[in-house]
């Protein structure tokens, strides 16, 4: 007997972005990290940022090294190619991929062990070259996959659960990035999604190396009282240096703020970051300001977050190399292999 059609409530249509995709189209495989891991919170904000910035996933290349953080590219943007390479070498892999195809939007995910120890050399030289890349450091102060050894970003006198105390000073990756000439340097917290999304969207709009050092607590090995990389520590100590809004190129900056309380900086793709001042009179386009701020944070043990440094003028590696506009990987044979007359000509020059 035919049943009367059930009256259904029209479901709320999920939001679709300008390229016709829903946020779920930006998801990855289910995470295999520990429940509550800071890295998963960051993956979620990456998904949101790419969705909100209308990025077409096939244009993205996800690169990583080795470690818990480096596993995460599998957990966002399923429709993007990913490359989980060798320990500490994400920068070189990102460089090769972008050289081959400059149209790719490269996102590198690394950790504190992957970057500040084994990969320090590559980090330094990547930043120096200003490769267009979003370089995310998921920083928890410990080696997770090898079960909780201190990393080089662990704070001096920080304590492991076992009671072991770190006797060496930490390496400040933001400080190094500013010094080495990174063009977009930020610090954030996995527990501050609003700021993180704005920073990620700003990085997506930037042309050059964007280093975002994110405190990303390790719930298993470094989330205890006495840790300076725990959720509680982060929540208690986070001090944003500004309130950050990302304003896409397509939107108009409408809200008016009181003169002198905001700073708008236009990014490469025409969009803006609007910085609303909080207490400090801080200008992130001034490198000296940035270095002083980081020095102060280092000396006083402050957890200052936000956009630390921005330089929209510096040329990228692709400019330095004077690369043609099309991806090298897609050049046709006649552009790659000179004609036989060229071989004759070269041969003639040896006579």
């Amino acid at each position: 007997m035919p049943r009367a059609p059930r009256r259904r409530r029209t479901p709320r249509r999920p939001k679709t972005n300008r390229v016709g995709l829903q946020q779920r189209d930006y998801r990855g495989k289910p995470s295999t990290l520990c429940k509550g891991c800071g890295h998963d919170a960051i993956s979620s904000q990456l998904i949101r940022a790419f969705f909100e910035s209308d990025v077409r996933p096939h244009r993205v290349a996800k690169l990583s090294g080795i470690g818990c953080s480096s596993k995460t590219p599998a957990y966002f943007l399923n429709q993007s190619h990913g490359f989980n390479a060798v320990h500490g070498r994400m920068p070189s892999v990102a460089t090769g991929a972008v050289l081959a195809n400059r149209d790719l939007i490269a996102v590198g995910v690394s950790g504190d062990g992957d970057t500040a120890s084994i990969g320090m050399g590559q980090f330094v030289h990547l930043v120096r070259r200003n490769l267009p890349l979003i370089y995310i450091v998921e920083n928890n102060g410990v080696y997770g996959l090898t079960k909780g050894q201190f990393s080089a970003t662990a704070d001096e006198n920080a304590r492991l659960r076992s009671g072991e105390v770190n006797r060496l000073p930490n390496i400040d990756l933001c400080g190094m990035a500013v010094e080495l000439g990174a063009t977009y340097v930020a610090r954030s917290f996995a527990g501050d999604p609003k700021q993180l999304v704005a920073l990620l969207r700003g990085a997506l709009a930037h042309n050059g190396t964007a280093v975002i050092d994110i405190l990303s607590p390790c719930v298993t090995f470094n989330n205890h009282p006495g840790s300076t990389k725990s959720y509680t520590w982060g929540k208690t100590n986070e001090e944003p240096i500004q309130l950050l809004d990302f304003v896409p190129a397509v939107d108009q900056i409408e809200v008016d703020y009181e003169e002198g309380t905001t700073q708008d900086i236009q990014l490469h793709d025409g969009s803006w970051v609007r910085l609303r001042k909080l207490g400090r009179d801080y200008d992130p386009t001034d490198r000296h300001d940035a270095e002083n701020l980081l020095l102060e944070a280092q000396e006083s043990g402050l957890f200052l977050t936000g956009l630390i440094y921005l330089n929209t003028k510096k040329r990228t590696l692709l400019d330095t190399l004077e690369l043609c506009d099309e991806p090298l990987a897609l050049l046709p044979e006649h552009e790659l292999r000179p004609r036989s007359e060229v071989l004759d000509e070269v041969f003639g020059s040896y006579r």
Partner: protein
Amino acid sequence: MSNHPAVAEVAVPRRPAPGRIVNDLSIQVATVNGSGSQSSNLVLLRSLFGMGIPVGGKNLFPSNIAGLPTWFTIRANRDGWVGRKREVDILVALNPQTARSDVDELSPGRAVLYEEGLRLDRQRDDLVFYPAPFQKLAAEVVRETRLKKLLANMVYVGVLGELLSIEREEIYRAIERQFRRKKTAVRLNRQAVDLGAAYARENLPKRDAYAVAPMNENEGKILIDGNAAAALGSMFGGVSVATWYPITPSSSLVEQLEGFLKRHRKRDDGKATYAVVQAEDEIAAAGMAIAAGWAGARSMTATSGPGISLMSEFVGLAYYAEIPVVLWDIQRVGPSTGLPTRTAQGDLLSTYTLSHGDTKHPCLLPASTRECFEFGWKAFDLSERLQTPIFVLSDLDLGMNIWATDPFEYPDRPMDRGKVLSRADLRRLGGFRRYADVDGDAIPWRTLPGTDHPGAAYFTRGSGHDERAEYTESGEAYVRVMERLGRKFETARTLVPPPVISEADGRSPVGLIAFGTSDHPVEEARVRLRDLAAIEVDYLRLRALPFSPTVLDFITSHRRVVVVDQNRDGQLLQLLRSEFGERIPPGVLRSLRHFSGHPLTAATVVDFVTEMEIGAGPAAGSTASP
């Protein structure tokens, strides 16, 4: 000629050579590095080349910028044998540090041209001595000390030209080629040559046997080093990303590549269709090249032994994740820093199986500048077809020394970009499995990042993965992937350049297997053995790993097979043994090992085979020849 010096070198006791020896000599110029003698040496080499005489030049240099001894050797030989010769016939002694020992090493009857202040003529009475005041003569051309020193080098070219009857016009042409548009330099150097020649004519009556005469053997040929040839081959192979870290003897490969690319791969608007990046180390160079290959570029790096060691981990990733990339190893003497400016074939075993776990890589083994060019472009086709790292093992002797060659052959086929699925393919297929063997050749299909299709993306990783490129720790999936990689290597076996086999009549009991730069002395030795000792030696020249089946056929069809290695442990011999095992009858393989850092000589091969065939018993198997 009845008095062939080759005969003298092998068997006959050495005496001052009577009569004239034409177009068969080796010249050694002994100087201090940094003294600017390289231009003069090249002028000398090019003059002989211009006279149509087969000629080759080898630079024996220290790992140093200035002040240490260096020797440049030129060999001219009417029969075309330009590999290293053990004997020096004409010594140009300009370095007080080494002059006495250099003179000591000469055989009777040889000639020494030297700066007269060194007074070498008192040292021996069985050589022909030609003293000349190079510095004083140079002072007649210029006053300035530095220029004077440089020109003194060109004075010896003039003296030697007169003594050996090198055509003056050819010397002038070589000078013009060397200094190109620098008119003053051309003028001064010509003057220096004229002065040297005049001095020799008036003061140095010819007393040695060596002379040159015009031939016509160099029609259409050029002089070029192997690294330049490799660079050209790479450019015509369509390289689009080259990453590197400086290391002798490979630096000049990428440096020259960049020079060629600047001239021939820039668009009219100055934009480059290539990227060359000097990386922070060889690890980064490998990472960049591999990722560029992953993203679809024709990518390469060039290095030498220490760099190969550093690239090891990345190469394992490229093998397991199946990423095309070309890696040139210009071999030098190891282990460690070893003798960084000397030649060897010591990386064969380590490169063939580079990285941890089960890995094996196709290796191309060029023996000439022509093959450097040919393998330069073919390596890209192979790497993209097979989706795996391809090594090209050259060496310092081939890479940095100067060789005469016929023109290179322009690639005879379009580029093979391998199995890449486009957006249109994916629309038709719906999706794909990255690591599935759908064609039965064990080579999977891939997509490039940036392909605009929701099914294009896959995740590349060095950790365990299945056919869908999904992470797995399943032992079964691991075994399936590794077995397929093993089968893919069998496909590689059918695609790499086959060996070149040269058999007299198929009946000789003696065979010889060699590769790379051993080819030149081996070919020379075969002729000498046939002419002098009536020993026919069949020859298989290996041009790639993995071995093709003909290699085993060659071994089993000979009673004794000499395997020539420029390394201590007989690495090629070991590979043959491990690959063919008991299919090689016992006692067949004999190992000729040469690893002093100098190129192998024909005399070493002749001695070894003569000893094996005529001597007291089978050769002991090891030779550490000078």
